[in-house]
């Protein structure tokens, strides 16, 4: 193909700022889900975790706004003025907004508590699930296959639990290892779920990072003090890698 004729718009459309959102939304969704569960158990840590979740959601929403080329056009209001349930991003917008609202009211001890706890739980589940769905719906991009539907929510839970360990919550250790183990198992299976062409592309573009991230994740099962850090880096890195390398269109054109 010669450049004289102009090249298709085949470049990367989601950059590192979008990747940061994919990590932050996992962290925010994971922590919000834990906070909602703690609220349902009337645990004393619930308020603190809600505050952390609110901070992470606010940070994620800020990153989304700041990286958006439409940030000064204020078109984002249409996310909440229109009804598009076929769009995963529409669900994500509502999930994050309702998690922030219900979490905020719970933290401030305002409103119907029991109903708010349930709204918080459902909204946080939507927030941690929608990124995988937003990728998996693109049937034209062979690296974003159905495994994204599991990998993204599970890495989000691992991120949330890893942060909980760093916040001195001993109860988070076992579930953290379980979800991180499951995420690493699925990530190890991932190349085998791809076509030969897609696998070759994935390993060529991201093979070294993929191997390092799996090794770091495994390290979380052996290192003690560093374990949550290794797990966080591994889970966040896997999400970033899949978003960046997965933008490949395949060889169909």
């Amino acid at each position: 193909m010669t450049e004289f004729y102009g090249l298709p718009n085949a470049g990367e459309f989601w950059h590192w700022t979008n990747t940061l959102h994919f990590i932050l939304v996992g962290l925010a969704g994971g922590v919000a889900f834990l906070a909602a569960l703690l609220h349902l158990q009337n645990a004393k840590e619930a308020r603190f975790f809600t505050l952390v979740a609110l901070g992470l959601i606010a940070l994620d929403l800020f990153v989304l706004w700041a990286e958006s080329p439409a940030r000064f056009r204020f078109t984002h209001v249409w996310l909440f003025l229109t009804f598009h349930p076929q769009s995963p991003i529409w669900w994500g917008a509502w999930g994050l907004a309702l998690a922030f609202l219900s979490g905020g009211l719970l933290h401030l001890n305002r409103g119907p508590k029991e109903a708010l706890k349930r709204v918080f739980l459902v909204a946080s589940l939507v927030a941690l699930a929608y990124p995988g769905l937003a990728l998996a719906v693109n049937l034209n991009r062979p690296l974003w296959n159905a495994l994204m539907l599991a990998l993204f929510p599970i890495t989000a839970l691992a991120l949330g639990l890893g942060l909980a360990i760093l916040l001195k919550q001993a109860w988070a250790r076992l579930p953290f290892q379980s979800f991180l183990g499951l995420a690493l198992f699925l990530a190890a299976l991932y190349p085998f779920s791809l076509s030969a062409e897609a696998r070759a592309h994935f390993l060529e573009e991201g093979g070294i990072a993929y191997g390092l991230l799996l090794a770091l994740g495994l390290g979380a099962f052996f290192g003690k003090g560093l374990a949550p850090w290794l797990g966080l880096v591994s889970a966040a890195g896997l999400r970033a890698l899949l978003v960046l390398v997965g933008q490949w269109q395949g060889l169909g054109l």
Partner: protein
Amino acid sequence: MPRYAMTIDLSLCVGCAACAVACKMENEVPPGVRRLWIRERELGIFPDLTVEFRPEQCLHCANPPCVPVCPTGASYQTKDGLVLVDPKKCIACGACVAACPYDARYLHPAGYVDKCTFCQHRLEKGRLPACVETCPTGCRAFGDLDDPESPVAKVLKEAGRVDVLRPELGTKPKLFYLNAPSKKGLTRESEVHHD
């Protein structure tokens, strides 16, 4: 209501890029991005050689994957089958760019997603899209698929071979390629990689 479609006869296309230039001028497409481009491929070795000049743009699919993923309704389909973007509703999230199997969409520097509109502003005035009007070999035809007297319906009826890009995805494109130079149909990137 018409059902707009376009055909490109690849046996007539010489890859002069006049359509790409006309599109840039007509729609004021910024530098570095494009609504229309030409994919040029040489495959094989003489005498088993295929040279293909393939103009590409939005295919205005009947089943467009870019429309349902849009969270604000900025990407929409008109009754006459055009797939358009309303810049006033677009949040530039990139969901439609990701969903398009043809790399037809790009992010406009003004902060919204843009693409070929089949020159809707010209259609409203009864004119042809700029690329069709400017083509020096007449390889492009445009019109109503449901009108047997329209240029597009006529050339589709007379064509020896009709192909669409990535038919396996079920998007039902309304940009048809006629008389591809290879007997196997349109070339694919996978052939380049294995050539």
